């Protein structure tokens, strides 16, 4: 039986996994990956509700947008990470303290 609940369950697992990665890991790249997981969890939610509840294509379009935004976000985020690494020679998130004080 493949119902709405199973999609939501997978989405939930993805979301929690992304959240845990985002909070627990100190590697910036890992945090970016966590964000990607959360975005994907929300995209899966959109598609699942679109299929089982409203039965139209709105959710699909939303998820397409989310993929585009995620791609853009990843491009910008990775660029920042690369510059960061060039300056600090590390990707540890706690080293990013230049805006402090």
């Amino acid at each position: 039986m493949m119902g709405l609940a199973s999609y939501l369950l997978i989405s939930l697992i993805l979301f929690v996994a992304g959240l845990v990665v985002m909070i627990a890991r100190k590697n910036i790249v890992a945090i970016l990956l966590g964000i990607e997981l959360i975005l994907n969890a929300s995209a899966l939610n959109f598609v699942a509700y679109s299929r089982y509840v409203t039965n139209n294509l709105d959710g699909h379009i939303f998820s397409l947008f989310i993929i585009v935004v995620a791609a853009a976000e990843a491009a910008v985020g990775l660029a920042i990470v690369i510059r960061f690494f060039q300056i600090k020679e590390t990707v540890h998130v706690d080293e990013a303290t230049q805006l402090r004080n």
Partner: protein
Amino acid sequence: MEYTVGSIAPIFLAPVLAFIINAFFGRKLPRQGDWLATLSIFISFIFSARIFSDFVFGKFATDFYVHKTFTWFDLSHASAVWKVDMGIYLDNMAAIMLLMVSGIAFLIHLFSTWYMDHDEKHGRFFVFLPLFTSAMLGMVLSDNLFSLFIFWEIMGFCSYSLIGIYNKKEKAGDASLKAFMTTRVGDVFLLLGIVALWMVLGSVTYVDIYAAIAEGKFAGQTVMGISFATFTALCIFLGAMGKSAQFPLHVWLPDAMMGPTPGSALIHAATMVTAGVWVTLRMYPLMVLGDITWFIAVIGAITAFGAATIATVQTDIKAVLAYSTLSQLGYMIMGVGVGSYNAAFMHVITHAVFKACLFLSAGSIIHTVHEQEMPKLGGLRKYMPYTHFAMMACTLAIAGIPFFSGFVSKDRILGDALYFGFMAGQNPMLAIVPILGFAGAGLTAFYMFRMMFLTFYGENRMHHDSHGHGHGHKDAHGHESHGHEIHQEHLDVRQNVPLLLLSIFTLGFWFAGTLTGQSFGKVFGKKVEWFKVLVEAPRVEQFVGHNRQPWGSVDSRDKTELPHAHYHHQSGYAGPNPDDHKIHKAHTIGAIASIIIAFSGVFLAFLMYIQHTVKPWADTFSGITTTLQNKYYFDKFYIDVLIKKGLLGLNRGLAWFDMGVYDRFAVDGWAAVNRVLFTASRWFDNVVIDAIGVDGTGVAVNLFNLVLRIVQSGKIQFYFIMLIMVLVSYIWTLKF
């Protein structure tokens, strides 16, 4: 005859121009510009002579005048009139005075070109000389007391500069300061009088003052309890006393001979000292209204007699002449006081002529023999015949010998004084005026002939004792006196011609028409007695509603011949209670008395200094002699008592007040108050502004920071957690 400004103003402007050119470019001019100064005065003389001939030969009327005005500034607002007019006022008296001043000043300039030749101060001297003359001419021309005061002060400054022209000599500097300061005492009062007149009348123009007197505007006005007319008259007369060196303020004039002799001639004869008499004459109606003529007469008589007594013991030629000037000025002032208006003015003119000549003669002697102490001179008649001639003519004039000008004018004054003192029904105490006047006349004859005899007659004493005692005297050039070889005098245009020209005018008939001025030997008709006819005290009624002529106008009024009956009376007496018959009697007695007195003075001098039959009284009356040699201790009194005791004491008191009270309480007290205020404001600044305002803001921001710093940790994952917590709490609230 027509008058425009252009025909009057050059009298004043030509010497001013010469002054300006000499002051700035004199050094570059040949002979340092002395010819320019002389020429400018000659131009003045030409213009003055034209006016004189118009006034004297053109019209025999006392009431003709030319009055041109322009508005100097006008601050009138609504009904308040604040308007100052300047202008020219020409009447017979001014015309005569202009000719006298410019003529004598010209001759003095001419003489100075000889006297000051090769002198280190030559250029400087010829800067101040034309300025001095122009100020006097301007004063004579001015139509109001205000411009008169301006010229008056310029003259004061010029006399200061001329007296102190040898500024390396300490005595000259002291004398110039003394002259300036003493006249300043009078000037303060003059200014006060002018301001008082201005405040009440709103004008200080002569004609306005005359009109105000005629209209009775002075009636009932009082200042500090005394009548306003008396107050202003007294103030103006005190100014005149300072300038004309009258009794308490006379001390500066004898010292004024420290300057070069021609400068003294100008100060003593044509300008400066006559200014005081001039303003007294101009303000004569005010003096009468203020009822101070008796005071004027007494002051004049005291000066006339006191100065004559001092002159009898002086040994310096110039000192004798200086005291004789004082004495003669006393006669002029006395003449004004006793109502002898016409004769007082005539004495101004006659005295100017013979005193200028006397001073120039003295200058001629001093410059030739480099000695001015009479005991060391003597017998100069042989060496200096021209100077002797001129000086003798002037001495005869000043001594009051008949047929000479001094007799004419002085005798009229004495005649009027006799009437004033004994017959006019005045206070019997005023008999002192004619008594002092006649005594002074006798002394004048004595001391002038003493001077002549000691200087020109007897043995020449220069080679005998000039190396003896009293060596320290210096002549006007600062040379030590030595037994110079005396050169025979030759007729020199610049040295002798001025003297001889002036000595011609010491003859009486130039002024009187008759040789004596009295009924004896009257040779011309009444018409020729131009002086009596032309000069008369201003009749104030004539000026009510007078109309002024605008500055640019051409004045061409016809002459107004008055019937002879219109003149008060023939004597020219304008004093109280005129009675023609008695006046005539007084004049006859006065003439006889003054002739006797003058001749006895001359005779006494002859006995003492030529015949040596009478020993000079210096030893017999040594106490009096000492008093006289010390000039009645006036200088001593002024310096030791007035200045050292009075003024210095007062100054010390004022200094104590200034230091002890003013400085201590006002200045230091104010400092203490400020210090308290300063402490308070410092506390306010430190505590309120700095601590609370400025630092408080920082502390407050810091406190706020403590909270923010916790939240803004800079750790991105902390932000995430907070984000999720916010999200969770949001969802949590949605659920309920």
